[in-house]
Every structure is written in structure tokens, then in C-alpha cells.
């Protein structure tokens, strides 16, 4: 990768592209990964609303899935789940 020099930067070093941090995969930080048991899930969306990334994706009929590219493995979702449908599984 060729690094940019200051001459190539936009004036004021502004970042012109919105939401470009999706190119930076924070999923590599993780040591435990959340696994959702879709049969137990009651679609309450508490994990979705409480996810700091956001790496819990919301689909039709309020189904949820985890985006492992960005999940940092904090475990908030597993802790907040009222029916314990999310389990933290070691990746080591």
C-alpha cells in the first residue's frame, strides 16, 4: 500500500466519504463471539438497541443476526437477552 503524503490530502484533512469506517474491521478485537439461538429468540430487539457498534443487524420481522466483521465481543447482547438466547463462545 502506498501511503498518501500531505500534498494528497483534502484541504483541512476533512474526510469526504461518510461512514467510511466500515473498511476497518474491528471484529479482530474479539476473543468471545456471540451466537444467537434463533429458536429461543423472542425478537424483543433489546440486543439490537443496546449494541454499541452497531454489529447486531435487524432484519424482517425483527429477526437479528450478528455482523462478525465488527463485533468486538463485549457480551452486552448476551447479558441483556431476557431469554438467554445468545451465548458467548470462545474463539481461542
Amino acid at each position, binding site marked *: 500500500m502506498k501511503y*498518501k503524503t500531505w500534498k494528497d490530502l483534502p484541504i483541512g*484533512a476533512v*474526510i469526504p*466519504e*461518510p*461512514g*467510511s*469506517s*466500515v*473498511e*476497518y*474491521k*474491528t471484529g479482530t*478485537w*474479539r476473543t468471545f463471539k456471540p451466537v444467537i439461538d434463533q429458536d429461543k429468540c423472542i425478537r*424483543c*430487539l*433489546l440486543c*439490537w*438497541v*443496546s*449494541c*454499541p*457498534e*452497531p*454489529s447486531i443487524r*435487524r432484519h424482517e420481522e*425483527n429477526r437479528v443476526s450478528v*455482523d462478525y*466483521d*465488527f463485533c*468486538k*465481543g*463485549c*457480551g*452486552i447482547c*448476551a*447479558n*441483556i437477552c431476557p431469554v438467554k438466547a445468545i451465548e*458467548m463462545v470462545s474463539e481461542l
Partner: protein
Amino acid sequence: MSNLNLIKTVKDIPPEEYLAPGHRLCAGCGAPIVVRLALKAVPGPKIVVSATGCLEVATTIFPYTSWKVPWVHSAFENAAATASGIEAAFRALEKKKGAKKPKIIVFGGDGGTFDIGLQALSGALERGHDLLYICYDNEAYMNTGIQRSSATPKGAATTTSPAGRVIPGKLERKKDLIGIAVAHGVEYAATANPAYPVDLYNKLLKAAAVKGPTVIHYYTPCPTGWRSDPSRGIEIARLAVQTRIWPVYEYDHGTWRINIMVKKPKPVEEYFKLQGRFRHLLQPENKWLLEEIKKDVEENWNRLLKLAGLKT
């Protein structure tokens, strides 16, 4: 305010996201939760101003940004002043060219709000600029290495108020930000907590609907600075409310309301034992401080009950 579409469940929160993942905030940080909800709750175009802090440094590491809305940062102390300038410029544009004014949202940490940015905030509130100021309060300067701020609660150990033989953590009380905001004559000010997302979202809706300055004081779990388990952030936030340490209330056009009524408070020890910064409070030699904190919590709750007209 009857034309507001207040929500009843989490399912009513819109699915669109305006904060992209890939930001470098710690695992288990509470700050992005309020950012996500605020960007959903404020209708129409919006501009975000950030004070220096965790949120600013972690979401905009060059050449990446997590924001999908216009975002500006200038310095630690002047987030409210920058926002005032933007608002005034758009007001002039509206008058001259008829351009629709976007809503200005300001995010400041507790250091950037309670300490360094207080005079800029005070000026913005006094001048009556149309902006929504959200203070995400993680109760110390977490970005620079957990130094005490005036939002650090009594008894908390930080790197500049370490608990040991000389002092048992910070000895002073936390500043009352909502009291300061209300003293400026703002129309709406409220505290909010991530453990109650529906209440938080409705408060953001109410604040966004006000034409003028509004202040939201948001409780932000910080696993790094509080020495707590990242997965238990929301649990700690809920305990903070249930022990009456962090009451959830609002000031709405002259009326005070306690939004989460805590009839039977849990013992404060339950909240303290989950966090390393309070561990020393449970030692027998610091019992006097624990009793003092319990007294403060009760006093504050009684004060709020009186304000809400629930007690004479």
C-alpha cells in the same frame, strides 16, 4: 407537545443507522448507544458537533469516519460555541435564502461539558440557540487516562483521586448539570440511561421538538475506566437507577417528572461491588464514606420528589 409520536416499545425505533460500525471505541462502551438513538430520533437534516473526548477521537480516525451525517469538531472547550455559530449561520441563511435549517446536535463528554466546556455551554444556553446538547457522562476523563472530573461521583477512585491510605477516592460531590441547565431557563432538560431505551428515545424526541437549547444528561457505562466487566455495562446502568444513585427525571416546560419511579431501592453496595473504582468502599475502614454516600443519595431523591410535587 401532543403532536409528538412517542414510542411504546423498542420495536418502534426506526431501523436506519447513521453511525457506521468500525469505530475504535472500547468493547462495551455506552456512548454509541445514545449516538445511534439520537441520530434516529432527530428528524430531518442534522449537523453533529463533537467536543474532544472518547467519541470524537474514536469515531474519526483519519482516513475513516463513522458518521453518516455532517460532523465537525474544533476543540475541547468550545463545542457549544461552535454549534452556536453554525446555528446562527443557518438562521441567517434561512432568513435570506429560505433554506431549511438543520437541527444541531452536540455531543460532549463529562469533561467537555462539566469542566472545560461549561462556559461555552452556559453562553449557548443563555443566547437561546436552537441546539440539542447531549452530555455522555462516563464520570471521569476516560480518553486521557481516567482523571477525575467534576462529574466523578463521591468515593470513585480515578488516577488523580486514587483510593489508598490518604484518601478513599474522590471526596467531593458530583455537579448537578440539569440544575445548571434549568437555571439558564431552558425549556427541556433530562437525564437518561441506556438501560431504559424507550424512555431515552422519547426524551430525545421531546428535546428535538423544542425550538431552543435543550440538554440531555446521559449515563455512559465505561468498562475501561470503571474497571468493570464490559458485558455488564447495561446491568450496571440499570442498577444505578434502581439504587437511586442515578435518578432518571426530566424538566419539561416548568414541570419536573421522575420517569423511572424507584419505590423500593436496592442497596447501593450492589451497584458498587460490580465496579473496581468503588471496590474500596466495601472495606470496613471506609464505612463512614459509604454511609455519607447513602445519605447523599437519599437527600437527592427527596429533593427530586419535592420538585416533582410528590412530597411536601
